[in-house]
């Protein structure tokens, strides 16, 4: 297969970036998208040019590191898949493919397709945990949890923190990410005691980081590789509202 690629190249955070054209041939349909970029980079290095910087690590859809905005979609055309889980068989021979970084004010570009998503860590640091020191736990089975709740909590906990929801949202909102963590802990009894502070602190940090507001567009859910549901955002809003009332 042969493709025309238009790839975002930007030397560093300060530099101006632009789309650069590349053609690539002899691509096998069973190659992953990242393996296709590997081949392109290999060609570039052999020609003495600077390879394209991109984030990736596990290459099996779980670490959340890969993050390409491909032809107008976060993680590309596939539903419920990360960039590393995208295979070239999903494209047509001769296609022109745009490759850009996840764009958002709160995700500054480091180089080419690599962005700084540490804002997510700072939000988690404000409450994405249960405050239990090592050694303080009781026997695990002393606290039964309704299976249905446990399943729902697991659905929310599946978020890999990739930031596709932010990249997909015209407002660059981080609601889906934040609500996934708030929901997981709101659904479990362990999260109970800190529930109110958690909602307030995490939402405040989210605003401070410069993420936008939610206007119910739903692009985040559509692009989320882990199928995190919009209902989590509704739950987060409820948690936040209740917490605000109590705190007054």
């Amino acid at each position: 297969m042969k493709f025309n690629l238009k790839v975002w190249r930007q030397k560093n955070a300060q530099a101006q970036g632009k789309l650069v054209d590349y053609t690539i041939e002899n691509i096998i349909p069973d190659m992953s998208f990242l393996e296709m970029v590997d081949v392109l980079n290999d060609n570039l290095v052999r020609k003495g040019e600077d390879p394209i910087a991109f984030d990736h690590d596990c290459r099996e859809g779980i670490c959340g590191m890969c993050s390409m905005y491909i032809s107008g979609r976060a993680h590309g055309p596939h539903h419920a898949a990360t960039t590393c889980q995208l295979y070239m068989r999903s494209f047509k021979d001769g296609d022109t493919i745009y490759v850009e970084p996840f764009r958002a004010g709160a995700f500054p570009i480091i180089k080419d397709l690599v962005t700084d998503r540490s804002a997510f860590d700072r939000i988690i640091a404000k409450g994405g945990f249960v405050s239990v020191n090592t050694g303080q736990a009781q026997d695990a089975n002393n606290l039964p949890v309704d299976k249905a709740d446990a399943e729902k909590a697991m659905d929310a906990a599946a978020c890999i923190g990739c930031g596709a929801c932010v990249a997909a949202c015209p407002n660059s909102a981080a609601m889906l990410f934040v609500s996934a963590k708030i929901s997981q802990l709101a659904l479990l009894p362990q999260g109970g005691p800190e529930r109110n502070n958690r909602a307030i602190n995490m939402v405040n940090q989210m605003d401070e980081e410069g993420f936008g507001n939610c206007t119910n567009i739903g692009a985040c859910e559509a692009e989320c590789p882990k199928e995190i549901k919009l209902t989590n955002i509704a739950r987060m809003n409820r948690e936040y509202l209740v917490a605000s009332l109590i705190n007054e």
Partner: protein
Amino acid sequence: MSELNSKIPTGPLAEKWDNYKEHAKLVNPANKRKLEVIVVGTGLAGASAAASLAELGYSVKAFCFQDSPRRAHSIAAQGGINAAKNYKNDGDSVFRLFYDTIKGGDFRAREANVYRLADVSRNIIDQCVAQGVPFAREYGGLLDNRSFGGSQVSRTFYARGQTGQQLLLGAYGALERQIGLGNVKMYARHEMADVVTIDGKARGIVARNLITGELERYFGHAVILATGGYGNVFFLSTSAMGSNVTAAWKAHKKGAYFGNPCYTQIHPTCIPVTGDYQSKLTLMSESLRNDGRVWVPKSKEDAKAIREGKKTAADIKEDDRDYYLERKYPSFGNLCPRDIASRAAKEACDDGRGIVPSGLGVFLDFADAIKRLGVEVVKARYGELFPMYQNITNEDPLKTPMKIYPAVHYTMGGLWVDYELMTSVQGLYCLGEANFSDHGANRLGASALMQGLADGYFVIPYTIGNYLSSEIFTKAIPTDHPAFVEAEEAARERAEKLIGTKGKKTVDDFHKQLGKIMWEYCGMARTAEGLTHARKLIQDLRKEFWSNVNIPGTLNEFNPEFDKAGRVADFIELGELMVIDALDRNESCGGHFRLEYQDEGEAKRDDENYAYVSAWEHTSVEADPILHKEKLVYENIQLQVRSYK
């Protein structure tokens, strides 16, 4: 050859750890704040250690090379975590988990460590549940368990197919909490470039800021490495792309002995290699063997027809199939341990009965399970695994059997540590997959997550206090100390040499070449002759690498190709040590199979001469390393031939 002191406490096995804890020296809270600890790595082992030490009051600096501590490769673990809770009332106990682990490791692990591991396994589950880790539950709301990876009791806790992710997010949450409280300073996108030792004690690290390329110096009263496994020495493995040996290797060169480097786990159920372009291999969870049956055709002709696309699995009649694991190991069948299942697959394929075009693949068939349980049950049980397989291979395992082949998955070897998890360098500790400690020559399924969290949550918080209690009068050493300057200078010189080489071959060219050598000669089957040859090949490769590698860009920018080059340089040196170790060990045990030492295909151990841990001391890259032996003494169990028949 000197004997090593593993500092195993005296007393009966079951009381050793309690005895140790009762007598370990303590640091008072006011002094803890003045003591700084560096933790390199934020996987299960590192994140749990960093969080727990910060909770105790130490001042912690944590490092990882990814953009966030949450992305360590622990995240990829699918199957589960063991614990001797005996919630199923099926006869499990601390002793049984201990025994299974020792036996699974082919009697090449240290009794005292493994017993402690089995003992604290129960606390791990309590801790994780309290953190809100959403483990699978039964209808009554209590925790569910399954049997996993060759165990006859159900002691594995799991969170769908994402156990590692959920455990890591629990530990990461605890870590972020401490970062938020100001007790941990986190350095993401930083790669450790060297350990700094002063007067024989570890006192800090030099790290490369991966965004700017700058070398930075950090002081610590103690340094903990929790940097994961080195499976990527084989180029293709189930590890993440960035997984490396660099931190452990730098420590090795600074005096930390390397334990059992040749013990590598080759996992039987991975998606087979299909082409040269492949960058990594994907594991299909071991849990699939609970319901899947492994087979190849009985006849070579049928296998050939399948390889050539003239027949499919469905065309092979029941009587013409060889369910070889069930045939060879009737009592464990498809659930026999990994090393045994892998070797059996290799044997079947070497016999010309492989079923993928390369010849290196066997079937894992769910047809019987589907008949017995129905499609829906099977689908529910293997949640995201089937779609994952289908996405990669374009084939639906509900309709046609999976194709699998062994791949490099885990490294039992690692830095040698004593009972306190201290390496042979004072004040330098090593946790998780990066150390050699608990799995002997083969690791059982669901035991790595257990070990990482045991080390980080429940062992190091006690053992490090025993050391740091004598450091309370040591003031923080300024990083303009000559030892820091020297370490940074050495790292810079090496980097400049690498980037200045401007040769003809890419970093990946070398990495792939190394991987081929390792897989061929130091993989599933090894011989003295092959290993001797491999050593020469690796030495030549090292020389060529340093004169002919081509790294683009500069040192003062974000430069992933340079990062890769540094790691490959270390892998090449490690590869040679693995080969040396495999050559020394004239026996077969666990993942180390020497063709010369076997009984009709079964590993033949030599307890008389090789019941020891090999701990290698570095001399120089050009010269032979020095072997130190830690004799393995078994006081509580009898060494047996490990049989799963």
